[in-house]
C-alpha cells in the first residue's frame, strides 16, 4: 500500500477512535453530573457540601466542553465551510451567554450584545455555537475579577473577499498571556507547552473559525499595567440566503 494511503488510513482510524473516546467521556461526565445533582436534591445536604457539589458540577461542564472540542475539531478538519448549515450568530451568542454562568458558579457575569435583534446567519451549524462558548469561557477565565463584564458588538465586514459577520467581545479586565498577539495566536505553538496553559479555548476558537472559512483574533486594549484588557474577535462567513 502506498505511504500516502497508509497515512490516510491511520488518520481515519485515529479520528474514529477519538470520536468513540469522546463519546465515552461524555457518558461518564453525564453520570458524574447527574449524581452530583441527585446529591444536591437531597434535603439533608448541608451548605458546605452543597457548595462543593455545585463547584464540581461546573468542572464537569468544563470537562464536557473540552471533550466536545476534540470531537468538533475532528469533524471539521477536512470539511469545506459550505458543508456547514447556517446558524444565526446573534441567537448563538445569546444562547452561549445565558449558559456560560454555569461554568463559573461564584462569579458575577454581565454580558451585552449590540445589536441584539438582527438575523445574522453564518456558516457553522452547532460548531459556531461551540466556538462562541469557548471564546466566552476563555475570556472569563482570563479575567480574575469577581465580576466579568463582556461587551459584544456585531458588524458586517469583508474578510478574504467574502462577506462576513464579525463579533467583537471586549473585556477590559482580561489578562492575556504575554506571547499572544493579534492574529498570531499560533505563536502559542512555539512556546514551551507548560506556558501554553489557559489557551486551549483560544486555540480551539482559532482552529474552528479557520475551518469554517473565517478567523479568530485577539487584540490588547492597552489599559492598566497587568490588566490591559482584551478584545476577542470572531469572523464567520455570512450566509445571504437560508
Amino acid at each position, binding site marked *: 500500500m502506498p505511504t500516502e494511503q497508509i497515512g490516510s488510513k491511520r488518520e481515519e482510524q485515529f479520528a474514529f477512535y477519538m470520536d468513540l473516546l469522546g463519546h465515552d467521556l*461524555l457518558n461518564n461526565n*453525564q453520570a458524574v453530573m447527574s449524581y452530583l445533582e441527585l446529591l444536591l436534591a437531597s434535603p439533608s445536604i448541608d451548605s458546605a457540601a452543597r457548595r462543593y457539589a455545585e463547584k464540581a458540577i461546573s468542572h*464537569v461542564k468544563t470537562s464536557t466542553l473540552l471533550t466536545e472540542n476534540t470531537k468538533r475539531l475532528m469533524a471539521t478538519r477536512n470539511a469545506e465551510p459550505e458543508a456547514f448549515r447556517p446558524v444565526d450568530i446573534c441567537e448563538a451568542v445569546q444562547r452561549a451567554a445565558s449558559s456560560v454562568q454555569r461554568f463559573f458558579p461564584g462569579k458575577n457575569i454581565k454580558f451585552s450584545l449590540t445589536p441584539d435583534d438582527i438575523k445574522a446567519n453564518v456558516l457553522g*451549524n452547532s460548531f459556531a455555537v461551540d466556538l462562541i462558548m469557548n471564546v466566552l469561557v476563555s475570556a472569563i477565565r482570563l479575567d480574575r475579577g469577581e465580576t466579568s463584564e463582556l461587551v459584544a458588538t456585531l458588524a458586517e465586514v469583508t474578510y478574504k473577499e467574502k462577506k462576513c459577520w464579525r463579533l467583537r467581545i471586549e473585556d477590559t479586565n482580561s489578562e492575556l498571556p504575554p506571547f499572544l498577539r493579534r492574529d498570531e495566536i499560533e505563536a502559542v505553538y512555539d512556546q514551551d507547552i507548560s506556558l501554553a496553559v489557559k489557551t486551549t479555548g483560544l486555540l480551539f476558537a482559532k482552529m474552528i473559525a479557520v475551518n469554517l472559512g473565517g478567523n479568530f483574533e485577539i487584540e490588547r486594549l492597552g489599559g492598566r499595567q497587568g490588566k490591559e484588557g482584551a478584545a476577542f474577535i470572531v469572523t464567520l462567513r455570512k450566509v445571504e440566503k437560508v
Partner: protein
Amino acid sequence: MTSVLIVDDEMFIVELYRDILQLRGYKVVGTAFDGEEALRKYGSSSDKPDVVIMDHRMPIMNGVEATKQIIRMNPLQKVIFVSADVLVEKEAREAGAVEFLPKPFRMDDLIEKMEKVHVS
C-alpha cells in the same frame, strides 16, 4: 404514573436514569441495552410504555433505526432521544422522536422533557 422504557447500552447510564426517574415519581417498566433488544421487549409488551428514552450509539442496532421501527409498530409512541451526538438530532426527529436531549443533560432538563411529552 408515567411508565418508561429505557434503552441505552451503558449499564451505569441505565441505572442513572432509573435513579432519577424513580426519585421523580416515574415508573421504569423495562430496560434494553441495544436497539434490537428494545424492539423485542417493546413488541412483546402488552402495556406499551408512555415514554421510550432512546440512546443512539448502541451495538447491533442504533437508536435511530430502533426509533423508526418502534414508530412503525406504534405511530403514537412518544420517544425522547438522548445522545452525545448532537449532529444526529435531525435524523432522530425524522425517525419519529418527539424530543431530543443532548448528553450530558441537566436532571431538570430530562424531567422537563418528560413532562412536556406526557402532557402532549
